[in-house]
């Protein structure tokens, strides 16, 4: 008995000592219950360095262990959001009225944004930092940390992947881009539609090394065309048998002529409207010969860069030119943005953070070619947390364990963390690639959530624990509508040009029972007839949904009336017949003949069965609508697998493809870029930089190309950007462009993507209804029905049933 008493006393004393050693901010005692949230992801993070992370797998650790200057939280009623200071001590203060001309020049504020007489707004911001913010080891985080980290993320010798967060976009820091590219090679591009960054002039040379690149990644480079013509693997083809013709390549002959310089006397030829097409043909023949001929089709429209010099190097804090971030106090920074920005955009942009711990960052430098990189954020001892949680265990391809960071200031400040927030003490993330294993573990109570696949929804769709999480992506069917390309693609007796007939495409639109599609082929998705769903927010200050505005509603009203499923087989029937009549009576070369079949090639990413089922759905929908028309039994959709189907379609190499676009919920205006920029969109045949649209703005008709409308709405200085135009005007433009795009039926929206998942009985989310931007609230708002020990006990006496 005495021994037990002594032992108990020792244990109590030990506990007290341990608690004392936990740090001054520790609030928790050893007797407190543990609430661990256990989840699984399928992919391993490659790096969680805030300067280099790329994918959502990479970001998972940062989402718990970092904190932004500002943070999105639920409003009081938890039916909307507000953005509040977190690492910042208060709201950002717009001190642009103090901006001098010299300051504007030094810190790269755009000339348009600077106004004499202290009238500038939205370009110079003071941010007070919390003095109690620190790293998990207690080291303070001050203004020096922010300035140092910004210099590193933009450092030209590092070329960090996330540098773009601060050198581009609506809240780009002044001179950040110049600093980032300083000292690097400078290239210009010369493909159609691409804009030269060399004062508008474009040049071409057979003899200078070129860099061929797609927007999404480089493909081939390092040689001049001369190298390929003369010395490399395909020289024979270029010189004797170009593309199987038995003739030399035209570009090779042109080079031999010496008109455009010789190898000993290389010349740059200025690209003009007269010679541009010719040059592009030479570039394309390079693609055809160097790459596989089928593959190369997808490279049409790629960019050809050539070297034009080097960008001038600049100092981060030079006397004449400096990057727009300055330490103005031990706990205050001032930020100069290149263009005028709103307070909301400013806070939104700084809701993520860029700070890194200097000693760890630099201790892990490594040389990659001529770049300096760091392995910061690849192991527990190569990383330092500062958010509500800290990384405590990480084993590659196995587990990530995250625990409460007792040195996070928020736990001691009720203004930051309210009583019922952050109940979760630990987060245990397992890396489990197999969804079926995840599901079994969930059903045994070993995980607290699991995503569901279509087949699982049949079993668990009615469960009280199932949750649906919509996302901003809309999946659509996109048409090739280019007459010439379709003529080229069709063969005798097999017509494709009917795809250019708007009635045919509209008929396809009305033939789809989208509800049925979602129920049978997707898990958690919902039918949609327009490219933007309810999640997009039109007014960031009120959280008003774009689809809820009168302009947003009007688009749907105009398009489908109250038939929001967009399904009307009779209408489709009539339109198919009308399209047939129009095409058969056409006199244009390549038009549909009465004896023709219509063969539509639908290129898909891979051979997964889901694509067969989706295409089968479309085929049956068309068949039902064309029954009794002259098109009956004449329309066939053929599936072809093409991993590069996006690229292929951008070159007109398919008739139909699936396309999916989504964007930032708080910026529906930015999404237009995906439909109006020829380098990004997939609607081959649509010419957004040529086709115009007239919109009535405040009583005046304004005409612009689609591309120019999207640029005008763009946040970084567009004519109708948030900083320059009122909300109603922006909504008018957005809805007009959206409606015009929909009414062309070059794409047909089918479903708004969503996810379905099961949540365990152990935990409850912050809200029952999905709230745009906030979702269900995330870990901050989780409440637990059971502690870890209680849950173990519950499992030992109960069988879990998630079918009810």
């Amino acid at each position: 008995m005495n021994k037990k008493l002594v032992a108990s006393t020792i244990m109590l004393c030990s506990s007290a000592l341990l608690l004392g050693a936990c740090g001054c901010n520790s609030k928790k005692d050893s007797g407190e219950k543990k609430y661990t949230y256990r989840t699984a992801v399928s992919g391993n993070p490659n790096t969680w360095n805030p300067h280099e992370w790329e994918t959502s797998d990479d970001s998972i650790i940062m989402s718990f262990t970092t904190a932004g200057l500002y943070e999105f939280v639920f409003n009081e009623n938890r039916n909307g959001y507000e953005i509040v200071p977190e690492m910042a001590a208060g709201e950002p203060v717009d001190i642009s009225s103090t901006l001098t001309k010299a300051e504007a020049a030094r810190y790269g504020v755009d000339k348009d944004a600077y106004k004499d007489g202290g009238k500038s707004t939205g370009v110079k911001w003071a941010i007070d930092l919390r003095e109690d913010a620190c790293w998990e080891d207690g080291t303070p985080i001050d203004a020096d940390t922010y300035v140092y980290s910004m210099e590193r993320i933009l450092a030209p010798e590092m070329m960090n992947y996330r540098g773009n967060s601060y050198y581009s976009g609506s809240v780009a820091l002044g001179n950040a881009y110049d600093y980032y590219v300083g000292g690097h090679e400078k290239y210009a591009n010369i493909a159609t539609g691409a804009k030269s960054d060399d004062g508008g002039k474009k040049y071409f040379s057979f003899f200078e090394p070129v860099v061929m690149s797609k927007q999404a990644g480089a493909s081939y480079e390092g040689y001049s065309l001369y190298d390929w013509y003369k010395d490399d693997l395909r020289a024979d083809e270029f010189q004797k048998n170009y593309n199987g013709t038995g003739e030399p390549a035209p570009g090779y002959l042109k080079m031999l002529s010496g008109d455009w310089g010789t190898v000993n006397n290389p010349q740059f030829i200025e690209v003009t409207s007269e010679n541009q097409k010719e040059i592009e043909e030479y570039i394309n023949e390079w693609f055809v010969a160097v790459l596989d001929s089928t593959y190369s089709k997808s490279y049409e429209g790629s960019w050809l860069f050539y070297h034009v010099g080097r960008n001038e190097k600049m100092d981060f804090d030079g006397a004449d030119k400096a990057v727009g971030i300055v330490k103005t106090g031990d706990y205050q920074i001032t930020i100069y943005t290149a263009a005028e920005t709103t307070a909301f955009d400013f806070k939104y942009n700084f809701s993520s953070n860029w700070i890194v711990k200097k000693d760890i960052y630099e201790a892990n430098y490594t040389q990659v070619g001529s770049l300096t990189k760091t392995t910061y954020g690849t192991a527990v001892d190569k990383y330092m947390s500062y958010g509500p949680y800290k990384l405590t265990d990480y084993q590659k391809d196995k587990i990530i364990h995250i625990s409460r960071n007792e040195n996070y200031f928020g736990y001691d400040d009720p203004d930051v963390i309210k009583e019922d927030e952050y109940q979760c003490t630990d987060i245990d993330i397992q890396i489990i690639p197999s969804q079926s294993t995840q599901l079994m573990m969930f059903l045994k109570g070993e995980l607290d959530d699991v995503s569901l696949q279509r087949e699982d929804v049949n079993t668990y769709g009615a469960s009280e624990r199932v949750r649906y999480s919509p996302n901003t992506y809309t999946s659509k069917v996109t048409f090739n509508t280019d007459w010439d390309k379709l003529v080229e693609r069709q063969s005798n007796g097999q017509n494709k040009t009917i795809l250019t007939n708007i009635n045919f495409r509209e008929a396809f639109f009305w033939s789809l029972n989208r509800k049925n599609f979602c129920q049978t082929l997707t898990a958690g998705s919902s039918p949609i007839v327009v490219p933007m769903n309810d999640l997009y927010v039109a007014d960031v200050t009120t959280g008003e949904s774009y689809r809820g505005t009168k302009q947003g509603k009007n688009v749907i009203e105009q398009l489908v009336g109250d038939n929001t499923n967009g399904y009307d087989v009779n209408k489709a029937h009539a339109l198919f017949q009308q399209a047939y009549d129009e095409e058969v009576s056409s006199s244009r070369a390549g038009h549909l003949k009465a004896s023709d079949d219509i063969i539509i090639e639908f290129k898909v990413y891979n051979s997964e069965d889901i694509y067969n089922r989706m295409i089968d759905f479309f085929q049956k929908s068309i068949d039902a609508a064309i029954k009794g028309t002259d098109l009956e039994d004449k329309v066939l959709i053929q599936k072809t697998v093409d991993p590069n189907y996006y690229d292929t379609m951008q070159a007109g190499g398919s008739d139909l493809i699936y396309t999916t676009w989504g964007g930032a919920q708080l910026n529906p205006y930015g999404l237009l870029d995906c439909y109006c920029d020829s380098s990004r969109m997939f609607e081959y045949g649509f010419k957004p930089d040529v086709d115009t649209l007239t919109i009535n703005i405040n009583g005046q008709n304004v005409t612009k190309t689609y591309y120019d409308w999207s640029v005008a709405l763009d946040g970084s200085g567009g004519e109708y950007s948030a900083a320059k135009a009122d909300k109603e005007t922006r909504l008018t433009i957005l809805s007009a462009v959206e409606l015009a795009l929909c009414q062309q039926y070059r794409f047909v929206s089918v479903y708004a993507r969503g996810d379905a998942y099961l949540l365990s009985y152990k935990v409850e989310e912050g809200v029952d209804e999905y709230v745009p931007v906030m979702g269900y609230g995330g870990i901050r708002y989780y409440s637990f029905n059971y502690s870890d020990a209680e849950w173990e006990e519950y499992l030992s006496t109960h069988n879990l049933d998630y079918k009810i």
Partner: protein
Amino acid sequence: MGKYVIKRILLMFVTGFIIMTMLFMMIRLMPVETPTPPDMPVDYVANLRKAYGYDEPLLVQYWIFLKGLFTEFDWGLATKAGGSAYTPVTQVCLEKLPATMYVNLFSIIISIPIGLGLGIFAALKKNKWQDQVISILVMVAISVPGFVVAFLLQYFFSFKLGWFDFQMAATSRYGWFSWKTISSVILPVLSLSFGSIAGFTRYTRAELTEVLTSEFMALARAKGLTRTQATIHHALRNSMVPIFPMIIGEFISIMSGSLIVEQIFGIPGIGSVYLQSINVRDYNVFLFLSMFYVAIGLVAGLLVDLSYGFVDPRIRMGGGKA
């Protein structure tokens, strides 16, 4: 013999070098997706690839690689595969190897005795019901793919019965030799073992059956040896000549990962890294792992050839003059 070994080793290096050259060229001819952030500056990709050295002609790239390899044993850095950006590929891969070896070692430890035992038993009971049962089980084990076995084991023993963990325990938390870790690899070890056991059983049975019917076995019995003595001292030893190299090969293969089994049971081994290196075009990881497996194959081939001489002294190597 010595000359033969030296010759084989030299040939091994030459073969390895040729394979490495081919692999280097082929993987580098596949275009790599350079990580490209949105709103990239027009020359971002070009500069990044220049910095990585991808803008150099292939032969120059290979020369740079060889220089680093032979002067500093530098295989380059992992860029995207392996969960460690910018970490030396040797480090990335060697970190993953222990988990693969751990599971495979257990698999061999149980496969060899069980496989040999069953094979011997089946041979001794040739054409009796015991032999038939073993033969059927061997056929099933060989026919059913390993991943199916893995799924079935996981479904019944982890999900339905709850006897074992779904996933291998994290060694960063539980260590390598705790009961938690060992018990968590029982199912993957079994999944990996079925095929090996079946292979050993079938091979041993076939060899031993043939030897048991040889004339010298009749002679041994005629000399007065019991059946057990004749089997152990004469039949088994002779039948081991082709089986022993198989065991060596199996031991060496403990370093090769099983992608599917590793994925199903959450074994943080080398299998997934290899696949990932191809998917994301991590040139350096791909080349290192490919050469690692090539080296294993070449060494295994050499050891297997040499082992014949040790197992059966009648076999001589080198093809010297009589």
